[in-house]
């Protein structure tokens, strides 16, 4: 059962990711990205991370991607013009990516023992209670720091995006 679930959502994620990269129009890429995030949220659930799955959907797919769509609409970004790119990118890009993929794959195989497996329900520690507990005790300092980070981001966004005062 878990296997089937995994396969379904993994496939959706991969297909949507490929779509993100391949589509010409940005809005199509954005919608595909939302699909990726959704299927990833399901995979998180499979791995027992309930809080994070919810956060993924609410914050990531619900806020960040909406922002993306707003901006794409605002900018009226059209289709991408099919011009040639930098020579270096074309030369090095594909081999480098393939190499990266290979290495990561090998690493992945080697890092975890072969009998390690995921079973839905085996991990019980991903509840909101557990995450909140850790967040406000062990990780209190990063929590406060990120609040400042968000403040700075807000100020930055406002300053950058406002119209010129005349």
């Amino acid at each position, binding site marked *: *059962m*878990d296997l089937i679930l*995994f396969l379904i959502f*993994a496939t959706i994620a*991969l297909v949507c*990711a490929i779509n*993100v*990269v391949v589509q010409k129009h*940005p809005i199509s*890429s954005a919608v595909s*990205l939302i699909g*990726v995030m959704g299927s*990833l949220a399901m*995979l*998180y659930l*499979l*791995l*027992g*991370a309930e809080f*994070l799955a919810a*956060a*993924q959907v609410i914050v*990531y797919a619900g806020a*960040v991607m909406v*922002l*993306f769509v707003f*901006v794409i609409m605002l900018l009226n970004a059209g289709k*991408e*013009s099919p*011009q040639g*790119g*930098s020579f270096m990118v074309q030369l090095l*890009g594909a081999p480098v*990516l393939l190499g*990266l*993929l290979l290495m*990561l*794959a090998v690493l*992945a195989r080697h890092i*975890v023992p*072969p009998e*390690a*497996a*995921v*079973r839905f329900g085996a*991990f019980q*520690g991903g509840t909101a209670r*557990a995450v909140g507990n*850790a*967040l406000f005790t*062990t*990780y209190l300092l990063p929590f406060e720091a*990120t609040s400042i*980070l968000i403040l*700075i*981001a807000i100020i*930055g*966004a*406002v300053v*950058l995006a406002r119209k010129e005062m005349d």
Partner: protein
Amino acid sequence: MSQVPTSWFLLLSAALFVLGVAGFLFRRNIVTVFMSIELMLNAVNLSFIAFTYQLNRVDGHQVDGHLYAFFVMVVAAAEAAVGLAIILTVYRNRGTLNIDEVDSMKN
């Protein structure tokens, strides 16, 4: 048969990451590049969660990986906000969304 080997999650994460890098390298529209960055961050989040599952310890550090992923999300949100603001400014000043034409740092 109802178990999934953990390494498959990591492989999926690797594949998503590489796709994100590919999008970053090969697309010319700034917004698309930005979305590829978001894709990379998501892939990394998945690997964090997978490792947390793998390293399931019971000494108070059980959910470290979840918290890392949580902070990644927070930072990604902030970065998205600021980055999109920058894109707006670039569009206003240059009139183009083609990343190859933003090259005044040449030489």
